[in-house]
């Protein structure tokens, strides 16, 4: 069957009433939690990971994708009105968006953000549907050596992309790798690092790691800060509906933002950070006329909201390409979704497309539907979401903690899980306080065991010869990309410094 027939089947699966309901629940929850200040899509998926176990594989995947997209839409609202971006994907939106809100044009900023998210998300989902089958063709030729190389690429680039310094990123990665070691060794059945504790003999559930590091760590961190919890949200002023003139101004930023997002999303550079930055700086550079004036005077230009919002939703779709076809998460949220797949014993990768074609295509189909739902929820009903910003902080954070523990206790059925949760929360707190990124830890905990399995399987097939790792052209290419991706930025800054020194 060709791609379009598969996509059509997928849309039919997604349009089944129950799946529509899951998508609706996902986008509503995603937007709601995404709106909450300080909470991005990664934390949103983490919170709902254990709860979703009662929905079945297809249902919860559809819901997760809805949460991912919804979190991106919702994040824009708190960035624009509160100037507190939920995560790196919305930082660029907050720059011009909050200025527009202060200037009395908050409504327009919200409208431009929602339509940009729709445009970027829909175009990039279409790209996802076209590119994924091609990637699967390539990935089918992958053996242990190639997979091991890919995982190494993910480790290096995720550590380099998050958290400012490579040492910090690698520290976080090794924390994750150590967590991943706990439990029964898959090849020999021996238990490792479980210290005789029965609950730790099976490996630690990734949901506990994710919720502990992200949700508990974040709330503990917030509690440890001397914060004024009384900041006021800007009221929404002006219509959220864009005039034809506004749409004309937004159209090019939408196109460019989508391009950046879709190009960078699949690369293991940490999701939406780079494309939104590139999109913002491009819009700022090319702005002319009234836009130029608005950028320079600090009143806030609509282009600066439109571009990054299209870019972060497009990158969300782009991120799904390596996740679905290779099982490789390139952002924190994608790592959470991978954890979601693993809850059902599903391993994303080329085989997923052949063994569970209806799930994959149903998921892709539901992404289109989720985008339509989201633009409807976010343009006319934006006022409802804005009210969520009025929830007092103590209630909000206490509520998040209650919800997080509910999910963990409900899924694990034991209070021991909460002790682990508290432990990971404390690790998360220390890491947040000392500027260590959390995403590499999660990626390490998820991909570490896979890397080990591939390496040991490869060694067995090749009778203990380690050189098998370097004998395939594909894996050598992947290592080369990894070196360029890590060393490239250093070389680039060094070259720029020399050039500016010589001028």
């Amino acid at each position, binding site marked *: 069957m060709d791609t379009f027939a598969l996509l059509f089947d997928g849309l039919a699966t997604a349009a089944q009433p129950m799946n529509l309901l899951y998508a609706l629940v996902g986008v509503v929850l995603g937007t709601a939690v995404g709106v909450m200040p300080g909470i991005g899509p990664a934390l949103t998926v983490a919170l709902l990971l254990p709860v979703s176990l009662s929905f079945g594989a297809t249902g919860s995947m559809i819901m997760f994708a809805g949460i991912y997209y919804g979190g991106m839409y919702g994040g824009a609202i708190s960035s624009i009105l509160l100037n507190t971006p939920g995560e790196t994907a919305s930082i660029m939106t907050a720059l011009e968006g909050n200025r527009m809100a202060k200037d009395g044009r908050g409504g327009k900023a919200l409208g431009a953000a929602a339509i940009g998210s729709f445009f970027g998300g829909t175009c990039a989902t279409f790209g996802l549907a076209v590119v994924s089958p091609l990637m699967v063709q390539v990935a089918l030729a992958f053996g242990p050596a190639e997979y091991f190389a890919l995982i190494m690429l993910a480790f290096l680039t995720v550590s380099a992309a998050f958290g400012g310094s490579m040492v910090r990123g690698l520290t976080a990665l090794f924390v994750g790798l150590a967590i991943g*070691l706990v439990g029964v060794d898959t090849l020999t059945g021996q238990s*490792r690092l479980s210290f005789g504790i029965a609950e730790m003999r099976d490996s630690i559930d990734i949901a506990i790691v994710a919720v502990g590091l992200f949700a508990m760590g974040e709330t503990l961190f917030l*509690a440890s*800060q001397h914060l004024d919890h009384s900041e006021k949200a800007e009221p929404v002023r002006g219509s959220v509906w864009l005039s034809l003139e506004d749409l004309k101004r937004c159209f090019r930023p939408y196109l460019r933002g989508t391009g950046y997002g879709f190009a960078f999303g699949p690369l293991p550079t940490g999701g939406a950070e780079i494309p939104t930055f590139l999109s913002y700086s491009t819009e700022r550079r090319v702005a002319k006329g009234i836009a130029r004036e608005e950028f320079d005077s600090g009143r806030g230009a609509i282009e600066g909201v439109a571009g990054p919002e299209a870019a972060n939703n497009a990158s969300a779709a782009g991120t799904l390409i390596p996740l679905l076809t290779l099982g490789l998460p390139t952002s924190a949220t994608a790592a959470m979704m991978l954890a979601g797949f693993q809850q059902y014993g599903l391993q994303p990768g080329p085989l997923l497309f052949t063994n569970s074609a209806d799930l994959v295509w149903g998921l892709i189909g539901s992404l289109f539907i989720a985008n339509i739902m989201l633009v409807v929820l976010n343009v006319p009903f934006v006022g409802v979401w804005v009210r969520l910003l009025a929830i007092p902080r103590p209630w909000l954070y206490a509520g998040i903690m209650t919800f997080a523990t509910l999910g963990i206790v409900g899924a694990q059925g034991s209070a021991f899980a*909460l002790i682990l949760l508290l432990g990971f929360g404390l690790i998360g707190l220390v890491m947040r*306080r000392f500027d260590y990124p959390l995403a590499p830890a999660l990626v390490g905990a998820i991909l570490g065991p896979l890397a080990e399995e591939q390496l040991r399987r490869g060694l*067995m097939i090749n009778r203990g010869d380690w050189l098998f790792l370097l004998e395939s052209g594909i894996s050598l290419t992947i290592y080369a990309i990894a070196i360029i991706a890590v060393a490239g930025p250093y070389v680039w800054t060094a070259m720029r410094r020399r050039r500016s020194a010589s001028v």
Partner: protein
Amino acid sequence: VQGIGPQVFPYIVAAGTAVIAALTVVMALRGGFPERERVHWAGLAWVFAAILAQIVLLYAGFGFILASAALFGLAARGFGQRPLWGALAVGAVVSAVLYLLFRYGLGLALPAGPVERALASLIA
């Protein structure tokens, strides 16, 4: 069987961690750590106590609603909500609603205590 046993990977991770630790020391000696804001110990202590209280109450068999009410109340107090009994009361309502929603709505198995058993007999 040729290949490596289950003990090799932990050694690799340990070696890597040791290297990172050495690099962190180098960073510290070079003054790579910026000055940080003072820790708000009181807030942190309340929230930590909140989680601890929930764990203890669950182990003691008080059930999800009471344990989570303690978690919610103490945590809200940690974020500046006063008075404590008010926060605990709101926590009881919130966790009761969550319990009913997830236990009877989604069929999630949550630890039951006296309150949950009373609710169950009320519903049945």
